[in-house]
C-alpha cells in the first residue's frame, strides 16, 4: 500500500537524533543522561510503530521504500539492540571520558542508516544507507579522543571501510551496466534471462559480496575487526558486533534468496561463498584461541559467528538465518554488557587475568556472563544451541554435509576459548585485586533482558519462530 506512513520509523529516528543534538547544547555535562532517556523514548515509539505496521506492507517513493514484515522485524530488533547499547553507555561514557551528547545522536543516525538499508530493495539506496551507518560508525569508533587505540580504530575502520565501499560501488556500477537497473529483483532477472552468463555481471556480484563481506567481517576481509573492536569504546563495540552484521546478512538474504531460486548458473558464486564460509569459521575460531584480551576474543568469536550465518545463506534457509541473528543479538550484547560491568571510573578490565575469581566476587556478573558464553559456544538449553542446531540441520538437509562437519568442528574449537573465560572466573586465584563500580542499574537491566532473551529463545522459541516465518513469507 502506498502511504506516507511508510516513512515514519525513519523519520522518528532521524528526528530523535536531531533533537538530541539540539538539546545537547543546552544541557550541562552532568545532565547528559537525559539525552539517553529521550533517545530511549523515541526508540520505544519506533518499536511500537513497527508492531503497529505489522502485515500492513506500506510502501512509498515508487516502491523504493517498502516496510514489509522482514524489515519491520529487523528495525524492531535492531532498535532494541541500539536501546541496549544506549543503556550500556549511560555510565560508561562518563567513566571513560567520552561524555559527548553527540554519542547518542550518532548512534541514532547510524540506526537510521540501518532502517534505510532494511526497508529497500534498491541497491543504490542500500548503499546510501550503508554509508550513513558506516560514517557514524567511523566517528563512534574514535570517540575516545584521548586514547591512542581508539583513534587507531577510527582510522583503520575509516580507511578499510572506504576501501570496501569502493569495491561495493564498482560492483554496483558493473551490475547496473549489465542489467540497467539498481533494483535487486531486476538485477536477478538479468541473471535469469541471460543465457550465456555475463562475466561483467558476475564480477559485479562478486564485488558486491566483497563490499558487504567487509561489513559483516568474514575472512579474508576481517583484518580490521580485532583492532577496531578493541579500540572502540566497549558499548560501541557491542553495537559494531551486532548491528552492521545483521544488516549485511539481511541484504545478503534479499539478494541471494531470489538468486539461488532463479538464476541459471549459481555455481561460481556458490563456491566463492562456500570457501569464504569455511575460511571464516576456521580462521576466526583458531585465532581466537591465542587471544588474551576479552574484546579481541569476542571480536574473533563474532567473525566465527559470521561463518555459521553464511552456512544459513548457503543452505537457502532464511528462517534459521533470522533466528540465529536474533539469538546472536541477545547473547553477544549480553556478553559485552558483562565486560562493560567490569569497569570503574577511568579504568576498564579487559585482560583475561583480570577475570580470575570474578565468579565468586561478583556472582551476578559471573553467572550471567557464563550463560552468555555457553550460549555463544552453543550449549543447550540456551538460544545459541537452538540457533546452531537449526542452521546445521537445514544445511544437512540441503546436502551441505562437508560444510556442517567443518562447522561443528569449528564450534568445538570455540568451546575451548569460551570455557577458558569461565574457568578463569571460577577456578583461578585472582592475581591482582580489581575494583569495579557496582552501581549501574541500566547495565543490570540489559544483562537481565539479554539473559531473558537467550533463555526464552532457547527454551520456548515457538512464538518468535511464528513471527519469523511471517516475516520471511511477506518478503516473497
Amino acid at each position, binding site marked *: 500500500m502506498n502511504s506516507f506512513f511508510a516513512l515514519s520509523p525513519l523519520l522518528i529516528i*532521524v528526528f530523535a537524533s*536531531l533533537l538530541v*543534538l539540539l538539546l545537547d547544547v543546552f544541557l550541562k*555535562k552532568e545532565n547528559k543522561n537525559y539525552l539517553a532517556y529521550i533517545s530511549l523514548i523515541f526508540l520505544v515509539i519506533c518499536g511500537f510503530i513497527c508492531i503497529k505496521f505489522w502485515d500492513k506492507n506500506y510502501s*512509498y*517513493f*515508487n516502491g*523504493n*521504500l517498502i516496510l514489509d514484515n522482514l524489515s519491520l522485524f529487523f528495525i524492531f530488533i535492531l532498535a532494541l539492540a541500539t536501546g541496549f547499547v544506549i543503556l550500556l553507555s549511560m555510565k560508561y561514557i562518563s567513566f571513560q571520558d567520552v561524555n*559527548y551528547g*553527540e554519542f547518542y*545522536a*550518532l548512534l541514532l*543516525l*547510524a540506526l*537510521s*542508516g540501518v532502517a*534505510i538499508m532494511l526497508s529497500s530493495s534498491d541497491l*543504490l*539506496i542500500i548503499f*546510501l*544507507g550503508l*554509508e*550513513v551507518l558506516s*560514517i*557514524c560508525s*567511523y*566517528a*563512534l569508533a*574514535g*570517540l575516545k*579522543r584521548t586514547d591512542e587505540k581508539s583513534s587507531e580504530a*577510527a582510522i583503520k575502520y575509516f580507511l578499510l571501510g572506504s576501501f570496501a565501499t569502493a569495491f561495493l560501488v564498482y560492483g554496483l556500477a558493473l551490475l547496473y551496466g549489465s542489467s540497467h537497473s539498481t533494483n535487486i529483483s531486476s538485477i536477478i532477472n538479468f541473471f535469469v534471462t541471460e543465457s550465456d552468463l555475463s*562475466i*561483467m555481471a558476475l564480477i559485479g556480484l562478486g564485488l558486491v559480496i566483497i563490499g558487504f563481506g567487509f561489513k559483516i567481517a568474514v575472512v579474508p576481509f576481517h583484518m580490521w575487526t580485532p583492532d577496531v573492536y578493541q579500540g572502540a569504546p566497549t558499548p560501541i563495540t557491542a553495537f559494531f558486533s551486532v548491528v552492521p552484521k545483521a544488516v549485511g546478512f539481511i541484504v545478503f538474504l534479499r539478494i541471494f534468496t531470489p538468486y539461488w531460486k532463479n538464476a541459471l548458473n549459481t555455481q561460481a558464486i556458490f563456491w566463492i561463498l562456500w570457501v569464504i564460509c569455511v575460511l571464516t569459521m576456521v580462521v576466526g575460531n583458531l585465532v581466537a584461541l591465542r587471544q588474551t584480551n576479552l574484546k579481541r576474543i569476542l571480536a574473533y568469536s563474532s567473525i566465527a559467528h559470521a561463518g555459521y550465518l553464511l552456512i544459513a545463506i548457503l543452505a537457502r534457509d532464511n528462517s534459521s538465518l533470522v533466528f540465529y541473528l536474533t539469538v546472536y543479538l541477545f547473547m553477544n550484547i549480553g556478553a559485552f554488557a558483562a565486560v562493560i560491568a567490569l569497569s570503574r571510573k577511568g579504568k576498564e578490565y579487559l585482560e583475561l587475568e583480570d577475570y580470575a575469581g570474578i565468579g565468586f566476587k561478583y556472582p551476578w556478573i559471573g553467572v550471567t556472563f557464563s550463560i552468555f558464553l555457553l550460549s555463544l559456544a552453543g550449549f543447550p538449553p540456551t538460544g545459541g544451541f537452538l540457533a546452531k542446531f537449526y542452521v546445521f540441520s537445514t544445511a544437512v538437509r540441503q546436502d551441505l554435509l562437508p560444510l556442517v562437519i567443518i562447522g561443528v568442528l569449528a564450534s568445538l574449537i570455540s568451546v575451548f576459548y569460551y570455557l577458558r573465560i569461565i574457568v578463569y572466573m571460577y577456578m583461578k586465584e585472582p592475581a591482582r585485586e580489581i575494583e569495579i563500580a557496582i552501581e549501574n542499574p541500566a547495565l543490570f537491566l540489559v544483562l537481565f533482558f539479554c539473559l531473558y532473551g537467550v533463555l526464552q529463545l532457547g527454551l520456548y522459541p515457538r512464538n518468535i519462530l511464528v513471527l519469523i516465518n511471517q516475516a520471511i513469507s511477506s518478503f516473497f
Partner: protein
Amino acid sequence: MGYFLFFLLAALTVGAVLGMIISKNQAYNAIFLILAFACMGGLFALLEAPFIAVVQIIIYAGAIMVLFIFVVMMINVRSGIPAEKKKWTIYLSLVIAVVLIIELILSIKGAFTLPVSTAIIKAGPTDLGRLLFTKYLYHFEITSILIIAALVGAIVLVKKKEKE
C-alpha cells in the same frame, strides 16, 4: 571522432592516475589527480552530460583539489615505505596487473562488437533536477541524512574539549 576522443581521454585518465600513484612527490600527486578529474569531466561531456562535466571540473578539479594541495603544503610528509618491505607487494601487484590487463583487453574487444546505443540521453541541469526530485527523491533525501552524519561525526572528532 567520438571514439578517438573517448580513447584519448580514457588513456589520459588512466595515465594520470598511474602517474599519481607512481610519483613520490605529494604536490605532483595532487596535480596528476587534477588531470584525471579533468579528463573524467571530458568523458562526461562525451556522454552528453554537460552539466555533470562542468560540475566535475568545478567541484573536484577546482574546490577539492585546492583543499588537497593546502593539506599537502601544511603537513609536508616525505617518507615513503622502505624499499625492502616492498618486494612481495610488487610481485603481488604484478599478478593483479596482469589480470587487470587481460580484463581490459577482453572488455575493449567486447566494446567494438557492441551495438552503439542511439538513444540520446538528456542530462542538462533541468533534466537532472527533474530526475532528482521525482525518480530519485528518496535517494536525494537520504543523502542529506548522510551529510548530517558526516558533519556531526567530523565535528565531534575535532572539536575542542570542554573544561571539566
